[in-house]
């Protein structure tokens, strides 16, 4: 498991996040019919006991749409955004205002999953195209709960393989609607190496982490 990345490797991973999230942001912008800005992706490599804190405010309620990615570099994808915008976002796909109620019912959840599906599809497609890695996203799963519990559940099974979590975090912000969401790519342990290899920077190693690399 890689804990230290060289600046060049970090840059390469950030670029992957950038391209993926860029596509997702374009799609979100088309859905919302307004400008969506994104931050430079952050690559967090954290011990599991700290990884839940990446979003802060562990008890704040958020909507999480979660997919697994199968294929060459198995990963997880999580799109998190504030719950008070959930109904509005769901309404984007439910044209008929008569049908749109004021609670997160089955129809609303289904619409949100579909939006997660569309955004993730854009991210995975761009990622896969850039790295030439074969990637297949699963069907989306939905949760509405405290953000700590959502991350807790997603990160738990990483523990079977190691003590660290890699989170590639890009914020997608629709300013006028103040929808401030996080888009996470969480490679499974081992997948980071595959991704670095696909990007041609696997052997870019620092002298102090010499044991980690295979020449």
């Amino acid at each position, binding site marked *: 498991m890689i804990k230290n990345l060289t600046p060049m490797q970090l840059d390469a991973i950030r670029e992957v996040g950038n391209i993926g999230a860029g596509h997702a942001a374009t799609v979100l912008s088309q859905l919302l019919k307004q400008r969506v800005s994104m931050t430079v992706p952050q690559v967090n490599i954290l011990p599991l006991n700290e990884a839940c804190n990446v979003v802060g405010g562990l008890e704040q309620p958020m909507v999480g749409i979660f997919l697994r990615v199968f294929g060459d570099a198995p990963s997880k994808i999580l799109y998190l955004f504030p719950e008070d915008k959930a109904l509005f976002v769901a309404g984007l796909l439910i044209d008929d205002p008569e049908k749109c109620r004021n609670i997160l019912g089955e129809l609303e959840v289904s619409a949100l999953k579909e939006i997660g599906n569309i955004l993730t599809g854009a991210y995975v497609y761009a990622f896969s195209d850039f790295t030439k890695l074969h990637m297949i996203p699963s069907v989306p799963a939905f949760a509405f709960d*405290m953000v700590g519990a959502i991350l*807790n559940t997603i990160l*738990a099974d990483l*523990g079977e393989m190691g003590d660290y979590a890699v989170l590639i975090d890009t914020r997608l912000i629709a300013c006028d609607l103040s929808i401030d969401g996080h888009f996470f790519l969480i490679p499974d342990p081992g997948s980071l190496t595959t991704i670095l290899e696909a990007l041609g920077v696997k052997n870019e190693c620092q002298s102090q982490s010499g044991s980690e690399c295979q020449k």
Partner: protein
Amino acid sequence: MPKSIRVGMSEIVVAEAPDILVTIGLGSCIGVCVYDPVIKVGGMAHIMLPDSTAAKEVTNRGKFADTAIPDLVELMQKKGAIKQRMLVKKAGGAQMFAYPGTNSQTHIGYRNAVAAEKALEALGLKVSGKSIGGHSGRSIYMDLATGVIRVKTLNSPEIIL
């Protein structure tokens, strides 16, 4: 002045009155709380996975139910707690995401709960209070002055264990 001590994923913490042990945002993980009311020493383990034998290597015993629980009890005993007096309570093990094609017996939260029960039984400890399963995340606040454990969820009233 009581201080709150955070128990993160895979951590085991033992402390004494008047401190408060807190774990926020338990999803499929389980918080196992052990308390000795006589000396007012309590501990909490934040367990992520059921079985250490399924893992490639065990670098952190706090992650697994079958290793974290014996460690927690041992740490308690080092602080002077006596097994016969220990009160055991647990919370967590929710199924946060419902996938198509999964049932309630296979999700990790359920397996964590079963493994925790088994590990406690092996040590001869009985659970006197629990809030397990369901679909909601939980936060646990364990007051070491009284042994009272409050479990908070987003949408339902607080539970006292």
